[in-house]
């Protein structure tokens, strides 16, 4: 049971800017990456933050991005360097 995305799936992070508590970093919004790990399912932190149950749980993935795609050359990294973030299924779109 790995939820909607399998390992190796290409995904795009939603571009949205909802108000309130979110756990998806701004610098990755709209970026394209690859699912490299499925961690299981966890209560939704965007609801837990307001004293709600966070249910139903959401699948959580480690998503890999290249530094180049993320920063378009503007940073101190080598060509093969990468960055990952842990992102809940509701923030991902299939590619």
């Amino acid at each position: 049971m790995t939820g909607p995305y399998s390992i190796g799936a290409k995904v795009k992070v939603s571009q949205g800017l909802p108000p309130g508590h979110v756990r998806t970093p701004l610098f990755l919004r709209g970026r394209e990456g690859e699912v490299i790990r499925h961690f299981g399912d966890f209560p939704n932190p965007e609801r837990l933050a307001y004293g709600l149950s966070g249910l139903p749980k959401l699948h959580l993935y480690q998503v890999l991005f290249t530094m180049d795609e993320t920063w378009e050359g503007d940073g101190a990294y080598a060509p093969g360097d990468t960055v990952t973030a842990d992102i809940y299924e509701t923030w991902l779109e299939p590619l």
Partner: protein
Amino acid sequence: MSTHEHHDHGHDHSHGHAHDHTTFQPDIKEPSEEWEFLEIALRELLIDKGVITAREVQDQIEAWERKSPEGGARVVAKAWTDDGFRQRLLEDGNAAVAEMGFEIEALKLVALENTDDLHHMVVCTLCSCYPRPLLGVPPLWYKSREYRSRAVREPRAILAEFGTELPETTEVRVVDSTADCRYLVVPRRPDGTEGMSEAELAALVSRDSMIGTATAFAPDGEGRSG
């Protein structure tokens, strides 16, 4: 004395519940940020209403401060010397460290192995998530806005500042700890450490090598202060 200590309670103190006379000892004497006042107000209310005691707050702070990177170093040294443990650690961090008596509640512990080809470096860009049961209280730089914003954009510059030079052929993978996982980096075992005991190896595992801003110390003392 800070302003919050001057405030006059004004209410009747004969309201039944037993008073706890432990005094909370703040680290910061003069709060100035909004969140500091919020913490003080919340803590004082919880203590005043009898939900928690000042002693419990103090005990919890001291319990966290007793945890240190030595715990993580023991885990890394065991992973270096016991291949079965290493595999269990990479597969299921919580279960593996529980074998050594470390309880990590609610959060998923993920161990990341550094190799010649892949070097992990951990950051929490959103706040300061850190594997405290294994590494203790995070260093101030880990929580700083500077580290959190630069780590994901200029990791090689940060690494250089920590004295860590890696070839371009090594992939630097910055791991942003944004959710329910806590990451422990298992640094590459230094060369020339064959035959060393687990305890001797643990002494080579610095805190920063388990965050990934540094590598483990060489057995000849390279990288150490002396």
